[in-house]
């Protein structure tokens, strides 16, 4: 466990270092902590207690509209116990006993449930699952509860709770909150929190009756990229059917237009940044998928149709490693990397020794044979594991996103995979350039007979090269298991893309593969917003066909075994 958190911290620090210049701290909304007992007043008045007693049974009505009304009334009661009840309802811990329909708060204990009274948290007893039934909630009810709780917590002593509460309020503030927010602002010591409170107040004050208050509120909104700020300004600038503004005041219109323009220019910058990142991330996925192929196809000239299945084997290895260590999901992913390399590498060597070795110089037969192997491997996992997709769990440090501001956030899993792809690329580069194996690989690629004459065991080098390329495919599988479904067909989805990248980049050139992957990724993502996911893929393919017509050897052509011909 320590190892994971260490690793996590290290990687996080690395990220923070790179991105700290524009980083604005953010708190996950899930951090709402329940209010500690010390804070709950023990001085419960008799009347509020009676109100509670009256309202609690009403929570089990079926109709959600009535339930929401009851919840609102419950929140209004001046009794701290209502927060406990609402939190229990939110966390699906509020049940009722089937026998007497009495509402209880539950706590799971082994296979049974401890039940507590919602009135004073006193323990009632231990019951079986069958005797109680959950009080259901729906999206709207949960949202209402969250907002109600946030209002109560916006002046909480704990900064983290305050931040989470305010974040909730910012998504759905209504005018009645104004005094609460103003009060909170005067008491607030934290600067960033104060800024958000100003924004929350401005969002309400845009609709105020006072003209100067409105103008200053509009100005505040214009400085924010918060999505609701834009929405609010657009609301001010609403037009009627004839196309003229509903708003009469010219200054307000002018100020709003100016503010909206500011927001838009900022937003378009962020949205371009975002698209660029999406492109790089797609590019890194393509790079991972293709880099192994660029060794087997690029360096050795073998058309390996089973490359996708070697990726799939890597993904399945991740699954099996996770099954073997279910309590250390984070660590299992790291263990899976060498494991997948070995598994796919060994399969690769077996394929080379068993089939491809006999078919060197016969590309068509190689293609057919490896296609057969790909079907074989697919059927193998179908039979041995399952025909259905298997669940690969994402560790918590790979989910969520890094939020720079409300308009720009990038997801952690993509960031990690981007750096992971670069790392794989760099280590492969090192192996090929700095080790004796790399030297021999390059020698064989450039001139096989000369290399043999120099005493290199070319057959042995062939096997190792193929094993290396396959192993890297396995490592790609580990990364892809975090992005896509792990199933027997996983490889099929990536084989075409991989060949595309390698052909585009120019065979036997790793740099070409890198540039090609990134170019294709970014082009695809910039096309996607206006062409759609399906069309942009087609456009990229057409572009590639034309490109290959003009430059048959790809971006970075190089002379070698495959281009020299056999």
């Amino acid at each position, binding site marked *: 466990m320590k190892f994971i958190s260490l690793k996590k911290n290290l990687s996080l620090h690395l990220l923070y270092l790179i991105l700290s210049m524009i980083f604005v701290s953010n708190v996950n909304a899930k951090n709402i902590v329940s209010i500690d007992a010390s804070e709950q007043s023990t001085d419960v008045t008799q009347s509020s207690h009676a109100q509670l007693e009256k309202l609690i049974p009403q929570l089990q009505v079926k109709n959600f*509209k009535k339930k929401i009304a009851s919840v609102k009334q419950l929140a209004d009661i001046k009794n701290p116990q209502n927060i406990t009840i609402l939190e229990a309802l939110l966390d699906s811990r509020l049940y009722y006993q089937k026998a007497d329909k009495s509402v209880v708060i539950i706590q799971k204990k082994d296979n049974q449930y401890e039940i507590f009274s919602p009135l004073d948290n006193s323990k009632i007893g231990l019951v079986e699952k069958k005797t109680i039934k959950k009080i259901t909630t729906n999206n709207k009810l949960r949202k209402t509860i969250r907002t109600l709780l946030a209002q109560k917590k916006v002046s909480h002593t704990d900064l983290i709770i305050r931040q989470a509460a305010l974040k909730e309020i910012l998504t759905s503030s209504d005018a009645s909150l104004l005094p609460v927010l103003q009060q909170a602002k005067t008491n607030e010591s934290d600067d960033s929190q104060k800024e958000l409170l100003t924004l929350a107040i401005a969002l309400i004050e845009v609709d105020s009756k006072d003209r100067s208050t409105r103008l200053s509120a509009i100005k505040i909104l214009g400085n924010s990229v918060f999505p609701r700020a834009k929405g609010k300004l657009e609301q001010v600038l609403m037009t009627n059917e004839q196309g003229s503004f509903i708003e009469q005041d010219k200054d307000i219109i002018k100020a709003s237009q100016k503010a909206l323009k500011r927001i838009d220019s900022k937003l378009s910058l962020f949205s371009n940044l975002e698209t660029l990142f999406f492109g790089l991330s797609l590019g890194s996925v393509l790079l991972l998928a293709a880099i192994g192929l660029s060794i087997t196809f690029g360096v050795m000239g073998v058309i390996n149709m089973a490359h996708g299945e070697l990726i799939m084997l890597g993904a399945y290895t991740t699954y099996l490693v996770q099954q073997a260590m279910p309590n250390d999901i984070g660590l299992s992913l790291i263990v899976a990397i060498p494991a997948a390399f070995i598994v796919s590498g060994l399969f690769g060597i077996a394929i080379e020794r068993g089939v491809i070795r006999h078919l060197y110089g016969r590309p068509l037969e190689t293609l057919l044979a490896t296609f057969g192997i790909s079907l074989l491997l697919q059927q193998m996992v179908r039979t041995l594991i399952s025909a259905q*997709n298997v669940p690969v769990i994402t560790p918590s440090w790979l989910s969520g996103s890094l939020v720079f501001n409300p308009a720009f956030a990038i997801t952690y899993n993509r960031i990690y995979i981007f750096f992971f792809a670069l790392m794989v690329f760099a280590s492969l580069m090192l192996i090929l350039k700095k080790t004796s194996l790399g030297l021999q690989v390059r020698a064989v690629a450039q001139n096989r007979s000369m290399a043999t004459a120099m005493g290199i065991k070319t057959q042995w080098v062939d096997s190792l090269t193929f094993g290396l390329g396959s192993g890297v495919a396995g490592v790609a599988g580990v990364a892809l298991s975090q992005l896509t479904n792990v199933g027997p067909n996983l490889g099929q989805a990536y084989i075409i893309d991989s060949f595309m990248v390698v052909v585009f980049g120019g065979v036997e050139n790793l740099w070409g593969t890198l540039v090609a992957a990134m170019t294709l990724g970014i082009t695809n993502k910039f096309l996607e917003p206006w062409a759609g996911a399906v069309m942009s893929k087609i456009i990229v393919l057409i572009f590639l066909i034309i490109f290959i017509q003009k430059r048959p050897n790809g971006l970075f052509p190089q002379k070698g075994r495959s281009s020299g011909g056999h």
Partner: protein
Amino acid sequence: MVTKSLRKLALAAVVTASTITSAGMAWAADTIKVGVLHSLSGTMAISETTLKDTVLMMVEEQNKKGGLLGKQLEAVVVDPASNWPLFAEKTRELIEKEKVDVIFGCWTSVSRKSVLPVIEELNGLLFYPVQYEGEESSKNVFYTGAAPNQQAIPAVDYLMNDLEVKRWILAGTDYVYPRTTNKILEAYLIAKGVKKEDIMINYTPFGHSDWQSIVSDIKKFGSQGKKTAVVSTINGDANVPFYKELGNQNISSEDIPVVAFSVGEEELSGIDTKPLVGHLAAWNYFMSVEDPGNEAFINKWQAFIKSDQRVTNDPMEATYIGFEMWAKAVEKAKSVDTDAVEQAMIGVEVPNLTGGMAVMNKNHHLSKPVLIGEIQEDGQIETVWSTEGTVAGDAWSNFLPGSKDLISDWTAPTKCGNYNTKTKKCLAK
């Protein structure tokens, strides 16, 4: 001499052969043959294998009750292997060679469209158990899944009235079912006064896994202050990375709920459901519905499949209802003849598994309740809304200009799948 004895021998052979065949036929006539046309391999095997097992379970049970018309039922299982043209060939094989009396089968619309000309030509009987896009009614097909007005439209109504959704994202996989459904939904929303700029439509290929730009677009579209929801006709395993990406980009089901038409218990079993919790699904049946009939069905299924981990889902209920109705109709018609059973089917009532009554209507579609549920962490779907009674399936959507005036009525005197009420003409064939 030699030729004569040879001729005798040949004659004897022919006689023996024909006796064997007639004996075989006599034996075959003692059973009623039930064809099962579900993919047992290929991409659809995941979903369809379950339905094959459901039919086998129903056949076994019917035989325990003494069969039908005094005869035992015999299931004939073929594997069309998720290969659409093969569906047509296998249908022909089932009817012409195996001489089945009824077929339960198909999942995707494209496989049904492939079977349609064959089943009509050979005058067979097909029970189709999956929710689909409508715009079809054949004399030889009974549709026991939901038509768009029994799933998509009520789901949109729920979002509009109960969650007060104002902006809409219609996201789907790029093929016939999502495209037709979205066309109907778009027309419906516009008829309800939603502006064009408040509707976003997006299509992705099968098995799409790179959802980052689309989810980012959804986020931008949904953060303008108006309540937004996604109506998803995304099919198959592409759903998993889609919901994952929603979670990663911090879009919760409370901010932008996603209502899915193709995500059921079977699809949820065995995947990491954390990112899906709170999102919605619209069906006519959930495993979680508390009803004695449902409980019995679940127990029967888990005993038949010998695993208490297996779930039940909506297409299974549709298969169950279809089979029960067919059995009732056969007894009513006292025959397995297609035309007799087809007429006997109309008006047949069978209890569904959610506490109501399923009725087969004149247009070969069922009356069903519509349920909206929220996905739970354990992969079950809990009902949060349901229609008061049942909704009659509408073969031809009222919201598409081409099909507005069409109705389907297979009773005399109309006997037509696409009768135009304006021109008073049957458009068929």
